[in-house]
Structures are given as C-alpha cells and as structure tokens.
C-alpha cells in the first residue's frame, strides 16, 4: 500500500480502492477472486492469501446468495454486463452480513484475448458491496408487511369464494361438494373431506377419498385448538355448528412443490363459515323431511273410486332444493255421480308452504258443493284468502266431472290449462275459464269441456311444462305432443309419463299430476 497523497496518480487510485468505505472485489469470468480490498477482508476475517486467487465469489456468500449468483446474477452479467442492488449475505467471521451488491463486467485492462469460448480471458468482474443491515432490516419489515397484506387479501378472497359457494347450498351433501370445489379453486387443494357422525355412531365421509386420511373409517382428530396438521400436510379442523352436531373437515394440499403450505388461519376461518353452513344445511334437511312427511300425510287420503272412471295421481318433489313446494292434488265426491278434481300450487316452499297447502286444500273441500259453479268456488276461496291471509297468490284448477255424460265444468285461477287426451288419439289443452291467482280481485269465470268415453282429463302443476331451456309455449306444445304419442302407444298417464316430461331437467321443480280417465256413463 502506498501512503495517501503521495506517489503517482495510479498508486493513489489503488490506495483509494483498497481503503474505500465499501467492500470491493475483482473477479475473473469464472468468479475467482483476483483482488479484494481491506474492508472486504476485514468483514470476512480471512487473510488476503486465503481469498485472493483462491476463493470463488460463491464461497464468500451464504448458500442462498450462491445459488442466486449462479442462477440470476451470473446470467445477467453475461448478457448485459451489469447487475445492481442485489441483496445477499456474506459469510463473515461474525456470522452473516447482509449486503447490497452491484456488479460490473468489463474488459481487463491490457488483458489478452482468451482462448476460451467467449473471450473470457479478458473479462473482469468488479463487485461493490455495501453494508445493508439497517436497510435490509427495514426492507424485511416492508416485505413482511406486504406478505401479511397479501395473505390477508388472499384470505378474504378465499372466504368470499367459500361464502358465495356455500350460500345457495341447502343439503349436507351439496355442502361438501360446494366446499371442496371452492377450496380447490381458491387454494388449489387436492381434496376436501367432510366427516359427520352418523346415527349409528359411525363416521360418515362426504367428499372424494384421495389420501390415506380420506380412506380411513375415522377422521384424524383435531387438537385442542380445533385444528391439527397431519404429516402429509393435510389440516384437520373441527366443525361445531351446534352442541349436538360436530363434524370434521380434512383439507389436503396439492402436494405440488411450488405450492405454499396451507394457511391454517385461513382454514380456521373457512371452518367457521363451514360450521354455520353445516348447521343451516342440517336444519334445512331436518325441516325438509318434516315438511315432506307432512305433505305426504296430507295427500295420502282416500280417493274416490268408481267403475266409471280411473284416477291416477303423481306427486314428485323437486330436486333443485330439498324443500317441498306447495303443490297438491285432490279428488272428492260432490254428489252421486259428480266428482271434484283439484290441482293447486301455493307460493313458497318448505314447512310454511306445506301448511298453507293443507289449509287451502281443506278450504276447497269445505266450500265446494254440487250447487256451486267452479267460478263460484273460486269466489269463496278468494274470500277465504282475504279473511285468513292464507294462500294469497296460490294457483289452482278446479274441475267438476259429471260421470253420467262426461261434461266437465272447470275454472283456472292462474293455473296451467287442463289437457284432454282423446281415447282414440289426439290431445288438446282447454283454455277456458281463466282468471288470476287467488286473492287477486278479479271476475272469476267457468268453462266447460266434454269428455268422450275413454278420454283422459289431465290436471297438473307447472313443474310438468316449465323448463329453463325453453319457453312456456314450447313446453305446452311438447306436453300435447308427448301425451298424444303416449296414447297412441297405449301407455298410461302415470309416473312414467311424468318421468318422460322431466327428462333432461337436472333441477326439476315440484310436479303434481292428476289424470282421470272417463270410461263412460253406463
């Protein structure tokens, strides 16, 4: 070293290089240290002879920095000759030292042209390292804060996706499916299994079995905190919708190397949402089964029988929701040889609708007499609706069949028209006697239709004709065509007929059918 301020300019520059307040390194193209200044050697705590001409840059860095140099810094240096402000750590005598590194590649002054591939012989690499403890600490805080914000945003996105997916779900099975799909989409998980205790005390698993955790008969146990991590990276969570209902959720990650481990905080929040949804789904299933039983009990009553006609009734609960709708049918004697037929549909679903249906069904029986024309029966039902506030906006068709002559008198309150299928073929909708749904003040009207022996009168609810993929007009046309064909083929108007109408409807509504075939008055 030369004294500062003395000697030739080149010596002064060399001195300044060695005494610079930043650590400086000169490397050859392969990363071998050609020279190092005093500060760098002091940081490293190694003698010059152990470094210069001996060490490669990679050995001076921690392993993360070494890989980063090889994969990122090196290539950029080769391609553009410079890299700036890379954060790495030096392996120093006192431990790791965070530094910021700027690097330049250039021609060695006076260097010879090398024999190597890309004239490496004349390339030198100058490296400047700045101590960056404070700055790195500060940046780490920023990075941590950013990661935190990203995690929070990610968590919110996931929770929102789960919320949206679970909102329309009514059954427990559908809940397991929706939750699995939502978590696969948002978190990329491989499998989600929902475990519930069955009535026999054994566990029941809903969801795809894709790992040993899912194949077992019993789910793994969540810890005292309500969750536990399994060896395969799965997370088990307790679901506690009610004190008498507990479930477990097992979420298995994709296993892809690049995926981050599952965020337990997110899953705990998901489990809370799933608990609420599970409670709701369980309740909905319970109430649905009560309503269904009620509905069946009410519809199950005795039906009129006679040699002069044949009566078939079908009730098909909808599959779109678990809840029963308020569809009903009824048939009862008004007088000897005179039968009343009713098909109706109250607004709403579930227990309420079932109860309303029961009341309205009874009301029809109470007000109907042989003396009253169908429009008068509707008038009285309007009065009943107004007085009791039960059954507002319900639709129904009321038909009176005289078994002697086959004359049908009927009225439709906002209800699909009856269908008459000829005994020898052909089918027609009868569009008379139409007025608005119950409770809406309107002049009621009756109409008549004549049956020939062998003709079938079909009353039904809109589930039989409504489809999302076609208009009502097409629905009616399809019903007429299908009924006509069925008669030609000698088939009955029963369950099979309903099935035929519902083909291709994935989420059918409630459907009711009443078919009366008049054999003649004899």
């Amino acid at each position, binding site marked *: 070293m030369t004294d500062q301020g003395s000697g030739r300019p080149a010596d002064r520059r060399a001195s300044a290089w060695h005494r610079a307040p930043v650590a400086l390194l000169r490397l050859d193209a392969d990363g071998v240290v050609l020279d190092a200044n005093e500060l760098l050697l002091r940081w490293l705590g190694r003698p010059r002879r152990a470094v210069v001409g001996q060490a490669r840059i990679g050995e001076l860095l921690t392993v993360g920095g070494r890989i980063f140099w090889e994969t990122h810094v090196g290539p950029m240096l080769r391609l553009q000759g410079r890299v700036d402000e890379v954060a790495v750590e030096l392996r120093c005598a006192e431990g790791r030292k965070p530094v910021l590194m700027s690097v330049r590649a250039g021609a060695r002054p006076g260097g010879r042209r090398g024999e190597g*591939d890309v004239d490496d012989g004349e390339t030198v690499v100058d490296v400047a390292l700045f101590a960056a403890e404070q700055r790195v600490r500060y940046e780490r805080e920023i990075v941590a804060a950013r990661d935190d914000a990203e995690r929070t945003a990610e968590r919110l996105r996931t929770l929102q996706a789960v919320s949206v997916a679970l909102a329309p779900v009514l059954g427990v099975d559908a809940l397991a499916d929706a939750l699995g799909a939502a978590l696969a989409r948002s978190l990329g998980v491989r499998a989600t299994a929902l475990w519930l205790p069955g009535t026999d005390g054994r566990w029941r698993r809903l969801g795809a079995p894709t790992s040993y955790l899912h194949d077992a008969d019993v789910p793994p146990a969540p810890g005292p905190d309500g969750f536990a991590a399994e060896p395969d990276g799965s997370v088990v969570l307790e679901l506690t919708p009610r004190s008498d209902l507990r479930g477990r959720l097992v979420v298995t990650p994709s296993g892809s*190397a690049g995926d981050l481990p599952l965020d337990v905080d997110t899953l705990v929040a998901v489990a809370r949402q799933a608990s609420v949804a599970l409670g709701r789904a369980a309740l909905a299933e319970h109430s649905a089964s009560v309503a269904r039983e009620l509905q069946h009990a009410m519809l199950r009553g005795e039906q009129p029988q006679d040699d002069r006609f044949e009566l078939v009734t079908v009730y098909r609960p909808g599959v779109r929701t678990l809840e029963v709708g308020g569809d009903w049918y009824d048939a009862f004697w008004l007088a000897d040889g005179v039968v009343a037929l009713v098909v109706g549909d109250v607004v709403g679903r579930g227990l309420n609708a079932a109860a309303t249906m029961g009341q309205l069904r009874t009301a029809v029986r109470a007000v109907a007499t042989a003396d009253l024309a169908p429009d008068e029966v509707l008038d009285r039902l309007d009065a009943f609706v107004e007085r009791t506030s039960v059954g507002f906006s319900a639709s129904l068709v009321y038909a009176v069949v005289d078994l002697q002559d086959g004359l049908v008198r009927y009225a439709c309150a906002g209800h699909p028209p009856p269908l008459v299928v000829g005994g020898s073929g052909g089918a027609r909708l009868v569009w008379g006697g139409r007025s608005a749904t119950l409770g809406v003040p309107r002049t009621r009207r009756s109409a008549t239709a004549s049956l020939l022996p062998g003709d079938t009168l079909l009353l039904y609810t809109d589930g039989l004709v409504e489809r999302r993929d076609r208009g009502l007009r097409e629905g009616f046309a399809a019903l007429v065509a299908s009924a006509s064909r069925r008669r030609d083929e000698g088939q009955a108007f029963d369950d099979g007929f309903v099935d035929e109408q519902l083909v291709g409807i994935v989420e059918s509504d409630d459907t009711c059918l009443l078919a009366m075939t008049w054999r003649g008055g004899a």
Partner: protein
Amino acid sequence: MSYACRVDVLARNNVSVSGREGAAPILFAHGLGCDQSMWRHAAPAFEGDHRVVLFDHVGFGGSDLSAYDPHRYASLDGYADDVVELVEELGLGPVVFVGHSVSSMIGVLAAVRRPDLFERLVLVGPSPRYVDDGAYHGGFSREEIDELLETMDANYLGWSQAMGPVVMGVPDRPELGSELADAFCRTDPAVGRRFARATFLSDNRDDLPRCDTPALVLQCRQDAIAPVEVGRYVADQLPDARFVMLDAVGHCPNLSAPRQVVAAIKDFLGS
C-alpha cells in the same frame, strides 16, 4: 387445431422461430432466473441446418403474464404441459428439446408424457432433486433451500421495482421503457419465487427411468447448482443417455462456454 389457439400458445410463451424453413426443429428452453436470451450465444449456431425455436416460460421474459396460474405452475408438470402444447401447436413434427437447468427436467416430463413429440433431449446441468435424501446427494440440505427462498424474498423489492412494471405491462412509466427495453432475464418476482420453490423442492427422480427418448447430459466440471455426481446420476437413470463433461465452470455453460455446448449438441445430433 384452430388458428386462434395456435396464436394463443405462441403468444403466451413469446415464441420466436428462426433458421432454415422446413429443417428439423430444435427447441431451446431457459432455466430459472432468466429467459430465452440465455440461449443467444448458442442458438444461432443451429440456424443453418435447423428450424430454431425459442420461448419464455410463463412469468418470464416476454411471456403473457395474464396466463399465469399459480396452481398450474406450482409444479414442473404445468410447465411440461406448456411445452407439450407448444410443440403440438408449432406443428413442426418431433423436436430436439434443449433444456437448461430446471427446464431439462421439464423436458424429461414432457417427453414421458408425449414421447411422439420429442426426437431427442439435451439436458444442460440437469438435477432431478436438489435436496439430499438418504444416499442420494443432491447438493443441498432443506435448510439451504429455505435460505435460497429467503434470499429471493430479500430481493423481491429491488427486483420488483426494476423489473415489475415492464413485465406487468404498466404503460404509465415510460421512463423505464428505454432503460429496460434491452433488459434481459425479466422475471416477475412473485412468479420467480414460486418457480424457485417448484424447482428446488420437487423430486423427479422416478421420472427418469420412464423417459425412453435418447438424451445427452451436458455437465460442467464444477457446478454449484447441479454437481457432477447429480449429472452422472441423471445419465445413469435415463434408459438411453450419453454423458458429456464440459471444460467449463458454473451453472450456465450456454453463456460461459457456448462453443463447447454447440459442438457437443451437434456431435450428439450427428450421431
């Protein structure tokens, strides 16, 4: 295959095609930390007698970042799927696939999936697993890999500021345009971090024996990322592989010793 689809894949991966029309196709795939410019010293040497195809993995270089799906690219399989799609869309017939670093394993995965699309494989600095595992010596402990991921995190800020806006296509910072128009190795930092995880934490040892495509392993005599014994392991495990040691150090002989790399590949293809 529809034209629209073809355009999509080619744009997604920023594909560039050069060289002799109608000649046998050779496809170069870049590794971690860079983009197709990593082949700028080697690929032109093949333009005389090959159709030369370069591309960027999604998230790197001039690729379409909007095509990035963190779940698809959480494992090397997603990238292998991309390569298969790309070779199919090119419609040039089976290709010679030259993969650097992690892309050599991506090539193996793609060839296992669709052997009909790959004539030969050239694997530059391959490693099927970086983390030591029992008798297998990958070169790194799990702790060291975690440390690398930390280093990448530490560089997130600096790199995202310099590279992010260009990669993300933010148009309202024109002052970055001229400075970075010629920038190499553009990487979206978040993508790079995830790619590093997928690269350094995956284990593709079991895929090697399933790859029947004739392969060439190019190994530097000193490589801090993929040590010599790992390169030999790859050549041993592949059913039909040749091992060539380059007189070069480092992990990127395609940049530091392109002439040797070119000569070795030409020798392999001529055989």
